[in-house]
């Protein structure tokens, strides 16, 4: 007899309902902004049960016990980890929606379907966070990616947008095939799809070569999703070609889903195989940081630069994984926390960076850095907000990014062996390289003169669209809050693992 904990499922139910309503409203009305408003409200409403679930222990009406949060025989779990990530996905979807509203209204694209797809993608991310078996995980992962493929190609008339979509689609499918192949091997070896059972059973098959192969395939497949080197080739082209608000979502939502998949699978299902995925991810992390950063140095287009930056940031997020390589299953909690903390902060600052970039892009009419020259002279506020986000990405205190890097360093050093120290040193050198290209953006905006051909009066003629302003404002507050009181982010990271303890991590 299947009993459902409706309170626990409420966030997903609300968002799923929103998805359907947006589709219907889009058909019956011509006022497309209604669709957007419904999307925003739906996501907002979904955040409420997330809060009540998080503070369930201290609320009266919340009577259900911890155990009943595990559903479908352990395939779907709502714990602190899932709640934190759902919160992040909702926030990211919320910001991406706000950015889209301002963006789409200024161009003439199909609007209704756009919001429908975006909210559906958010739903995928939320389901992803709770999935604890391979079937639901892959369904959720593809629910994130599927709509994103279409969103990336939204500007039909633009060849770059088509290229973005196509590349994203093809690599996405290859990644899926790789993962599925690995999963099928794993299923053949253990006879189960569920993570906690695989974790137990895999110890008996840890010596089988096929098991190693399965782990490698799974990790490689997720490597595409998180755009880690050497699986990153699609990223810059897709980021540059897709509509900017979609890129913002891709860089946080879609990439985040990949990270969640990697985290849950590696830590929950494959703790017996740290000696396989550990060194593998060590190499991938070191490569991502180094290649991402070095190539980013040469970029002149902000969207491409952010693309490479997100590759490098993925490397930083992966570093704690690599550090646990030789340390065995005992020490997994700290790297886990570090990655979550990093991801939460990354989500806020990267969305802010895209939001600001969109504002500037709309005004200047270009995402080429040289056209952004002298921004601070005619739009000081926007330029300062640009500085806040890019310097936060570079990890300069007191902006939130410093704590993300700090948590990452702490986790890697804390492992206490050379796997950890070495990747910490690689990361430290990379943090310096990264600064150089973030500084390049600062140089354009603050140090250079306004280039010829940029008409300041035209650029300043429109006010910043309110939704975009709101999104960027939220992110600015977040960046300062997490930067000055990083305990908040760390608590979120810890909260996510405190409850994981119940899963036997």
């Amino acid at each position, binding site marked *: 007899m299947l009993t459902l904990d409706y309170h626990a499922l409420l966030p997903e139910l609300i968002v799923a309902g929103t998805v359907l309503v947006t589709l219907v409203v889009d058909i019956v009305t011509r006022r497309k902004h209604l669709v957007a408003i419904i999307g925003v409200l739906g996501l907002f409403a979904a955040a409420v049960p997330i809060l009540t679930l998080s503070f369930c222990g201290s609320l009266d009406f919340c009577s259900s016990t911890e155990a009943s949060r595990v559903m479908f025989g352990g395939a779907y779990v709502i714990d602190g980890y899932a709640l934190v990530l759902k919160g992040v996905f909702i926030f990211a979807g919320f910001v991406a929606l706000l950015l889209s509203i301002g963006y789409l209204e200024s161009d003439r694209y199909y609007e209704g379907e756009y919001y429908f797809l975006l909210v559906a993608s958010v739903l995928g991310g939320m389901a992803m966070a709770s999935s604890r078996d391979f079937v639901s995980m892959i369904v959720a992962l593809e629910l994130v990616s599927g709509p994103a493929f279409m969103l990336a190609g939204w500007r039909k008339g633009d060849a770059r947008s088509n290229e973005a979509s196509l590349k994203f689609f093809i690599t996405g499918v290859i990644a899926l095939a790789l993962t599925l192949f690995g999963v099928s091997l794993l299923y053949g070896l253990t006879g189960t799809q569920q993570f906690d059972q695989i974790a137990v059973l895999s110890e008996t098959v840890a010596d089988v070569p096929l098991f190693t192969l399965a782990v490698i395939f799974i990790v490689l497949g997720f490597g595409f999703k998180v755009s880690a080197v050497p699986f990153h080739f699609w990223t810059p082209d897709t980021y540059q070609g897709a509509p900017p608000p979609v890129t913002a979502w891709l860089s946080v939502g879609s990439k985040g889903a990949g990270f969640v998949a990697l985290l849950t699978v590696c830590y929950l299902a494959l703790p017996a195989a740290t000696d396989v995925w550990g060194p593998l991810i060590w190499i991938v992390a070191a490569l991502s940081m180094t290649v991402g950063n070095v190539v980013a140095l040469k970029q002149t287009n902000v969207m491409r630069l952010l693309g490479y930056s997100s590759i490098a940031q993925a490397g930083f997020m992966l570093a704690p994984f690599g550090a646990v390589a030789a340390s065995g299953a005992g020490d997994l909690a700290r790297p886990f926390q570090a990655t979550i903390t990093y991801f939460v902060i990354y989500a806020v600052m990267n969305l802010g960076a895209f939001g600001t970039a969109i504002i500037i892009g709309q005004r200047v009419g270009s995402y080429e850095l040289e056209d952004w020259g002298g921004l601070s002279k005619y739009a000081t506020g926007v330029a300062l907000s640009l*500085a806040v986000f890019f310097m936060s990405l570079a990890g*300069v205190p*007191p902006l939130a990014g*410093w*704590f993300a890097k700090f948590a990452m*360093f*702490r986790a890697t050093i804390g492992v206490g062996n050379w796997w950890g120290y070495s990747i910490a040193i690689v990361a430290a050198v990379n943090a310096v390289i990264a600064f150089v290209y973030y500084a390049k953006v*600062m140089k354009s905006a603050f140090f250079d003169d306004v280039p010829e051909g940029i008409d300041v009066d035209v650029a300043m003629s429109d006010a910043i669209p309110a939704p975009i302003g709101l999104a960027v404002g939220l992110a600015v507050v977040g960046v300062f809050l997490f930067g000055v009181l990083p305990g908040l982010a760390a608590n979120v990271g810890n909260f996510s693992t405190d409850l994981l303890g119940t899963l036997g991590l």
Partner: protein
Amino acid sequence: MDWFENGLGLSLIVFLPAIGAVVLLAIPKAQEAALKWVALLVSLVSLALSIVMAVRFDYSSAGTYQFGTAIDTKWIEAINAHFHIAVDGISLPLVVLSTLITALVIIYSWNHWPEPHNPKLLLVFVLVLATGMTGTFVALDLVLFFLFFEIVLLPMYFMIGIWGDRGIREVPIFGWKLEMRLYASLKFFVFTLFGSAFMLLSFLALYFKSGEFLGERTFSIIQLAELGAAGRFVGTFAFLVFLGMFLGFAVKVPMWPVHTWLPDAHTAAPTIGSVILAAILLKLGTYGFVRILLPVLPNEAVRWAPFIGLLAVIGIIYGSLACLAQTDMKRLIAYSSVGHMGFVMLGIATLTDVGINAAIIGMVAHGLITGLLFFIAGSMSHRYHTRDMRRLGGNMVLMPKMGVLLGIAAMASLGLPALAGFWGEFMALMSSFNPLEAIGATGTFRGFMVVGAVGTVLTAGYMLFMLRNVNFGEPSEEWSDHEFHDVETTEWIAWAPLLIGTLAIGVFPKIVFGATNDAVIGLVEKAFGG
């Protein structure tokens, strides 16, 4: 005044400027008067509070931390990082110096706005810098220290980049040609960031190691110093931690051979940027050595003291020789900092109370004197529109008051007795005659002393060379139909405290030693067993 004693007073000194910066952001750009007055007011209140603190400081127990927040003020609970700030005899003079320089810089700026004209942004940066500087000197938690240490980077980066020198410079090796300000700002940031990234790794390593001894991991400088004094940090671990911290601090000081960012940054920065850089930011590095590296890793400090001493004397000689080769007045003063900070580091490397006292008074004196020199150099290049010493000359004729001030500052800088610069150099050399016995390299240090003494002669040489070129002689034809305004009122107000301080400390060094001596003796005894 309980509220003042229990940490609130010190917190105000540190954070008032940051609050002021936020207020400035809210004031429209066009209301320059309001912007200036708010910034001035904030900096003066912060200065006044730090003077009150200096007056109320209990000099009889200068070695204990005073005016601090409670040790158990949690800040980031997850990593056991605390908001713990306090001053002792070592940090007190530096806190007063930072608040003083901040106020003076704002006064000087009153009608000396560098191009492009944007007082709002410049003042915001100055105030953020102020918070970072004072914060670094009072932080007693490594994470907090790191945070403040890094906060100063961004405003200074923007200051150099936006208001810096637009002359073209060719980048060595690569052969690119780009504007001085762009090159210098990036170089400044990258060098410092490189050092501090490794410094952070060392801090983290200490944090994890401390858990093995205390049961609970800690970032507390006090607790880590206790562990260090008990000889807990040894072996490869201690060496690696030392290396990371050394990199971080040495870049900031800067020590030879990682000093190359300094001449570029100081020369390219606008006047007030150079003043803040020279007067305060360099001290963050030397302060880090005294506050963190020596107490926490005494064994490594003893082991590597000759090496640090060697780099210090190389810095002294190299800096002086480089000065002799300069034609740009500001660049000469910048290189002189390399030499002076060499003396400071030499004092620290002896690991004796005399040496460290010398280092601290050297830091304060260098802050006052080089601050003044950069002010004067800035004002002169504002009037002459050049800093090329081959074109300058006869300044005594054209601007006699300015010339006299430049003369006094130069004399103080070369270490003339009865002026502040003397004590730092003299005592650093004196201490290297008798370095800590445990180092076991007394002969080597005596060699350093001789080399350092040669350095003082060279210092005198280049300062006199500068005076001859700039002050004396007949003004060249070029300036015959120029009219020069001698020192203005705002300049007098901004410079007088520096002059008075230089004289006062020169005649009566106890102003500084009174605070530092007990604290330094305590530190040395604890770390190196007296």
